[in-house]
């Protein structure tokens, strides 16, 4: 019996290795199978299927689908984060820096807070000002429930820790004009040019 179990474990280990590799190469390719479309023509796999209201740094209530029409560079952060998030924001600024002023109008940069209790719109506003974020940046705060749902969709997992810090993954994703994930980059201080290229492909003319 033990043999069988060991075999099972070994198989799952192998499967783990294989599927992990696969994931890297095609994590973001969309299945062509998008027969099911909603009334608003949001593709079935679009992040915009999460139909919830979020608050912006200007205290406007928006739905993610209002971002449709332009590609989006999206990540998740929280403003009390001391180290990783400022680096993430600096990554995004570097990516933005690879575009001209005019080009920057053709995409959105969106930061969604992991920490809705403390990151109220006013706090996000201050953060945007301190970080000198441009007008194409949108900072969002929603309920814990929708924040978790979005993180699962974006595969940016996080955990609220008892000391009120947050353990979280650092990934950025590019969404196409319909909100489908077309590119993902894991980690910090990684290749800004690659992200810019992915974004540019979705921008059109």
């Amino acid at each position, binding site marked *: 019996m033990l043999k069988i179990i060991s075999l099972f474990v070994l198989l799952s280990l192998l499967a*783990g290795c294989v599927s992990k590799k696969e994931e890297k190469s095609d994590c973001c390719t969309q299945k062509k199978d998008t027969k099911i479309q909603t009334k608003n023509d949001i593709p079935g796999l679009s992040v915009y299927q999460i139909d919830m209201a979020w608050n912006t740094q200007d205290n406007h209530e928006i739905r993610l689908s209002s971002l449709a029409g332009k590609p989006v560079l999206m990540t998740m952060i929280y403003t009390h984060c001391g180290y990783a998030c400022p680096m993430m924001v600096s990554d995004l600024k570097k990516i933005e820096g690879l575009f001209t002023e005019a080009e920057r109008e053709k995409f959105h940069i969106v930061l969604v807070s992991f920490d809705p209790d403390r990151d109220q719109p006013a706090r996000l506003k201050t953060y945007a000002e301190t970080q000198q974020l441009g007008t194409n940046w949108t900072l969002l705060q929603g309920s814990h429930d929708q924040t978790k749902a979005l993180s699962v*969709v974006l595969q940016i997992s996080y955990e609220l820790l008892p000391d009120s810090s947050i353990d979280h993954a650092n990934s950025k994703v590019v969404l196409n004009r319909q909100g489908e994930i077309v590119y993902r980059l894991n980690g910090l201080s990684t290749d800004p040019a690659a992200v810019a290229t992915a974004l540019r492909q979705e921008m059109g003319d």
Partner: protein
Amino acid sequence: MIRLLVLLLAATPAPAQDMKVVPAAVFKPFFKGDSTATAVKAFTMDTKAVTNAAFLKFVSNNPQWSAQNIQRLFAEAEYLSHWTSAFTEGLDHQLANQPVVNVSWFAARAYCQSQGKRLPSMAEWETAALSAPVDSRYQNTNDIILDWYSRKMPEGATVGSVYRNQDGIYDLFGLVWEWTEDFDRVNFSDDSRNSAELPAGLFCGSASIDAADAADYATFVRYAFRASLKGNYTGRKLGFRCVKSL
């Protein structure tokens, strides 16, 4: 009028799922790399996995979660694929008392919310699962798990048919795998500042080094399985149950 009222009452909810208390505990994570032990507060848990019948009722009341209407972001194509039209039309009761499977994390979560409940955290689920079996052919939970892993899973097993634990909760092992709210928790290492990558050691060769107990294959398989999931995935042996904070 009275008749209408009676009808309405009769049509409203099925008897609520029995819940039992899982006492407070300190949960020690399986992987050393994880943050240290966490306190788990006492909570109540469904005594049995959610059944096809209960889930059908949920889908009838919330048609956006039907196989026909659900968006791919929330469940892949295999969602509820084991449901026959005879079952959904109420003509076939065979599936009724079996655990619902082929459900995604989003669907499981929506179901629990519709009941005023939530999915258990991984720490809560694991804490509940530690409780030893009573009245059963198994000595301890590890026996159940190893037996479960080493045979073909029984087709058609109903909820409550495997074993009951000391808290009065059934089949945490031996029936189906179960979703947890933070199933994606093992998808990143403790030090998120360095890497958002899956801990490679979890999967490839060096796996057992980081495990709290290298001999605990059974637990290892469970964690590896969770780590392989995404929110819209479904599985033929993947179901769920709900909990409630006290």
